[in-house]
């Protein structure tokens, strides 16, 4: 390691440690390549020259920390991102879940709510929403509030609608939202079925037993060790024969938890707890 690299590793470590100690958000085991990109963007936005400057600012200005948190946590997703995944949930997973008296689903790392609403729409169309409860969790309170509001920009709905149909939607997506000029709000019947709350896969443990966990494109931001911790929490939250859905490029192949699961829909990265 060159002196400069050593310096930069040290600065990064100190910043993350400071954030953890002061605000109890733990980014210390986040995958470094993406984390560094996000921090570089934050440096520009917060007008800091170095990570040490940024550290000083977030320690003294909680507002600067909220802004930084946005850079570190917010992902913009889509309704029905990766339609084959949602098609597999509808056509292959729900026939199992239908046999349960009540269905509990956990969307881990829900960001601004797109994934949770997508699942709620499928459940509604399959006549299961009235006996379903979706827990949608994230570490960013601001994202959770946005998710709870269920308001998205109107210009995103052309894409959402295309995804919905490709995912096997039975009607028209427009049945599930009300559009005003620039924005659209998701239907109240969907919002009622979703409980949004704060939860960290890095520091919290399991809080409920569920039949399906959907955790998509969250683990890619974690280093291996933190991934293992998170997958352990997801596993412990699943009932026997419960399902775990991951992002389309995420896999349990490299995980020590792999033996606890079978591949249920391998292309769609849906696993079943043994």
């Amino acid at each position, binding site marked *: 390691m060159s002196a400069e690299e050593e310096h930069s590793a040290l600065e990064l470590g100190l910043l993350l440690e400071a954030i953890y100690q002061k605000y109890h958000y733990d980014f210390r085991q986040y995958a470094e390549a993406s984390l560094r*990109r996000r921090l570089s963007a934050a440096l520009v936005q917060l007008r800091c020259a170095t990570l040490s400057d940024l550290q000083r600012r977030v320690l003294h200005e909680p507002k600067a920390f909220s802004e930084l948190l946005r850079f570190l946590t917010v992902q913009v997703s889509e309704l029905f991102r990766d339609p084959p995944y949602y098609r597999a949930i509808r056509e292959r997973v729900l026939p199992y879940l239908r046999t349960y008296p009540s269905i509990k689903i956990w969307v881990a790392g829900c960001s601004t709510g797109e994934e949770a609403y997508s699942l709620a729409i499928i459940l509604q169309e399959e006549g299961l929403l009235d006996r379903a409860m979706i827990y949608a969790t994230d570490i960013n309170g601001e994202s959770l509030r946005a998710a709870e509001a269920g308001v998205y920009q109107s210009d995103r709905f052309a894409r959402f609608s295309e995804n919905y149909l490709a995912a096997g939607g039975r009607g028209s997506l427009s049945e599930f939202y009300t559009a005003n000029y620039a924005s659209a709000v998701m239907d109240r019947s969907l919002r009622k079925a979703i409980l949004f709350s704060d939860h960290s896969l890095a520091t919290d443990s399991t809080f409920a037993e569920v039949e399906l966990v959907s955790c998509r*494109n969250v683990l890619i931001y974690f280093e291996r060790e933190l991934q293992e911790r998170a997958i352990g929490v997801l596993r412990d939250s699943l009932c026997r024969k419960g399902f775990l859905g991951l992002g389309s490029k995420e896999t349990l*192949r490299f995980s020590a938890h792999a033996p606890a699961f079978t591949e249920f829909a391998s292309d769609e990265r849906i696993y079943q707890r043994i």
Partner: protein
Amino acid sequence: MVTTPRPIDALVIGGSAGALEVLMTVLPALPRDLSAAVVIVLHLAPHKPSYLRDVLSQRTALAVREPDDKEPMLPGTVYVGPPNYHLLIERNRTLALSVDDAVNFSRPSIDVLFESAAEALGPSVAGVLLTGANDDGARGLARIRASGGITVVQSPETASASAMPEAGIRAAAIDHVLPPERIGPLLVELAKRSGGSR
């Protein structure tokens, strides 16, 4: 001190309009026992499945993979970035993916791959920027050069869209400006160089 150049063990390649055709010329030149990994990002339609892996497999003796997150980056293997994800390289020589915002209107973005490669692997990287219609990749190429890596650009007059290689040439000191048929042989040379300090 001996000045044998350090071997290159990651060849990162980026391109956009017309780059698939160039890869069809470059990849057949790479031998099965290539001691470097090849990591490729092309601008793709984000919502369509990519046939890149299948198309490229037919033109190379090397294994071609669309990697999963955290997949180890192995020599003699070609990795192509999946559509709608950024592809990055980590210090521990694994591949990482992200769904962060598009960079230069692209996801995958060439800058994201190149900058992460420079950060993670420093002087053991060669960056290759091919034909393309915007300036994605130029900043990344400059980063690779600044970290001691090798920079290669397709000669603009041979590019079906010259904006990308020209932007690369403006942004960074370029070690090699070459037509497609000479890029493959150069990469083989770079991967072969014996170890030692630079």
